[in-house]
């Protein structure tokens, strides 16, 4: 049942992307081949996701709005070119989201809920469940949440769990990644190059 729901969400996400693609053609040439899927091309070659349909409509009325930067110019800053799904609901205990690309959850993930992604995981809410980013082996994957209180974090083959007992909650967005063989959690700073610090294993991005 969950799987169906995810498929529906994924469809919705794809539809939206297609609508936007029509507005601005971009170079579908891709040198990073993390995802084999042909569909992954071009559709995800977009760096900024702030635009919505309403904004696109407003643009016609000569109101200056956010413009998309063509991918070529910011290629260095792209951390993932995998397909992404948006899940707009709360992931509750016993529910599991699995997707080979990135997963963005617009909601909370409760204890006992699992989000497993081949790519990165971003939760626009409180994360209290189990996250497995880079589940297909990508050690550069990250897990970010507005509030990160996971029972377990797994990135590729690395695993970490919450400390025992009561510990003070941090009410700030945080980001988890692998550094020197351990999973670390740090404060999320907009624009800060979390992804490329340490070993740059995905050299192909610069291609």
């Amino acid at each position, binding site marked *: 049942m969950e799987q169906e729901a995810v498929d529906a969400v994924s469809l919705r996400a794809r539809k939206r992307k297609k609508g936007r693609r029509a507005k601005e053609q971009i170079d579908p040439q891709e040198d990073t081949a993390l995802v084999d899927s042909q569909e992954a091309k071009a559709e995800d070659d977009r760096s900024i996701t702030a635009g919505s349909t309403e904004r696109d409509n407003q643009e016609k009325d000569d109101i200056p709005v956010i413009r998309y930067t063509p991918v070529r110019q910011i290629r260095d800053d792209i951390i993932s070119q995998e397909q992404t799904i948006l899940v707009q609901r709360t992931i509750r*205990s*016993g*529910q*599991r989201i699995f997707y080979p690309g990135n997963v963005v959850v617009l909601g909370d993930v409760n*204890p*006992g809920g*699992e989000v497993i992604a081949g790519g990165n995981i971003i939760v626009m809410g409180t994360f209290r469940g189990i996250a497995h980013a880079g589940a297909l082996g990508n050690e550069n994957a990250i897990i970010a949440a507005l509030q990160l209180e996971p*029972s*377990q974090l797994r990135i590729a083959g690395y*695993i970490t*769990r*919450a400390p*025992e007992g009561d510990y003070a909650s941090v009410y700030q967005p945080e980001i988890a990644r692998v550094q020197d063989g351990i999973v670390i959690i740090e404060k999320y700073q907009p624009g800060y190059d979390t992804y490329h610090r340490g070993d740059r294993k995905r050299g192909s991005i610069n291609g």
Partner: protein
Amino acid sequence: MGEVFVITSGKGGVGKTTTTANIGTALAMLGYRVVLVDADIGLRNLDVVMGLENRIVYDLVDVAHGRCRLRQALIRDRRFETLYLLPAAQTKDKNAINPEQMKALCEEIKKECDYLLVDCPAGIEQGFRNAVAGADRAIVVTTPEVAAVRDADRIIGLLEASEIRNPLLIINRIRPKMVRTGDMLDVDDVIEHLAIELLGIVPDDESIIVSTNKGEPAVLNPHSKAGEAYRNISRRITGEDVPLMNLENGEGFMDRVRRLLGLRTS
């Protein structure tokens, strides 16, 4: 070679999981090697009650399907070295395993422990059949309520059909005051109706709620009345002869003050 106990009740919410956690912990306190198996696939709770939720990587379904070794899935308790938990899967349902797999699993585990306690899910369907498949003995938990006793009766019949003879009875959540005033079934009423051997009685105790939320079984709390009851039950399981707890002595400090002041006579 260990003994496999299934802890079951039929009705939900009577305290199967709490009982499993407490008896298991108490047996480990006595130095026995204990493995707790959560058979409530899809609605696991034993890990939370034991405070081991964060450590789950593999679960019972993974072991049953050969996706990992048993050793990888067993979680050692953080307080007792001889206490292990095999957690249930949360994202699957009861049909993810079958009684044969459960039986094989219990056979494998009991070679290396003294007591294997299986926490059975509520109900009498697949989950129940899985949980009892590998059991040598059964502990039936009930509360002094007509509905719970009726379900316990049904369960005892099903256990007999599964060739698990002589189940033991735990009567949980007894409120001495209500029994005294005749508002609650008393221990004798329940035993008379179910006609099985009584393993122990456990008073209703608010400390259970606190300890369950904290992930620390009540038997670790020397002041908890229910904890004491579970410690007694564990000693009975090991063959010791322990008299039933006297619940009438359970008056609190304020009760004593009131009595001394002559405000209440009971």
